């Protein structure tokens, strides 16, 4: 099996879907975050793959830059998200997202 761009994209699509699965199917709030992180990781993989396979060589490692910033932003998101989980847990004594419907319209 030769590693081509398509293979990488399919792997990352799989990762993305698994992340989506985690975010959609699990009731624990943390899984939503885990899922989102996975999806972001899949996106990162895409960036790197596209950068690596691009026929033209940009003067700057653009894909890498994207990934670095994505990682930073993902880290910030994780920190705030998890803090929110803790805060929510403290307030409602649950992390089951099905029960957190106070924002219902």
């Amino acid at each position: 099996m030769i590693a081509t761009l398509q293979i990488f994209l399919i792997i990352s699509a799989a990762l993305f879907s698994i992340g989506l699965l985690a975010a959609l199917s699990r009731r624990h709030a943390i899984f939503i975050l885990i899922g989102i992180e996975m999806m972001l990781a899949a996106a990162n993989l895409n960036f790197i793959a596209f950068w690596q396979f691009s026929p033209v060589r940009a003067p700057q490692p653009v894909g890498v830059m994207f990934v670095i910033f994505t990682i930073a932003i993902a880290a910030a998101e994780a920190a705030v998200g998890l803090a929110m989980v803790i805060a929510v847990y403290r307030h409602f004594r649950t992390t089951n997202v099905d029960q957190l419907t106070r924002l219902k319209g």
Partner: protein
Amino acid sequence: MNSVAFAVIAIFTLVFAVAAATNPRLMHAALSFAVMFVGIAAFFFLLGAEFVGLVQIFVYVGAVAVLIVFTILLTRRDAEERHGFKWGGVVVAIGVFVGLVWAILKTNSLPTLPYLVKAVTVKEIGTTLMTQDVWPLMCVGVLLTAALIGALVLVMEDEP
């Protein structure tokens, strides 16, 4: 060799990803999540982005995973009980996967050549960060600070 390595890493990553998504035991799921990131980092190594791979490990395994397990620990009472599983999500996820794969395979304009590893040095990254991308870098710095403070404020207990 690369193909072999690629296959090994791909399987390793996907298995741990599935474990992270579906393992009913929260803690195991979180640890699988961390391991999955090691796999992704390996992908990055494979693709010649050593630095990103190291950062990935550094941030995800060293920080985000720790944060997650801490959160699990702090919401422990809830972590023990079973929340069940929603099958609707699975359907949607599979649908998305099929859609994506279909789109990837259908797109002909993607380059099909096998890749030649073009490694990127830390120096190049640094130069880019300090010249072309210096404003995004500053913004990310501000964002991280804001996130740090925001997270602290969120979890601060009300009573002094």
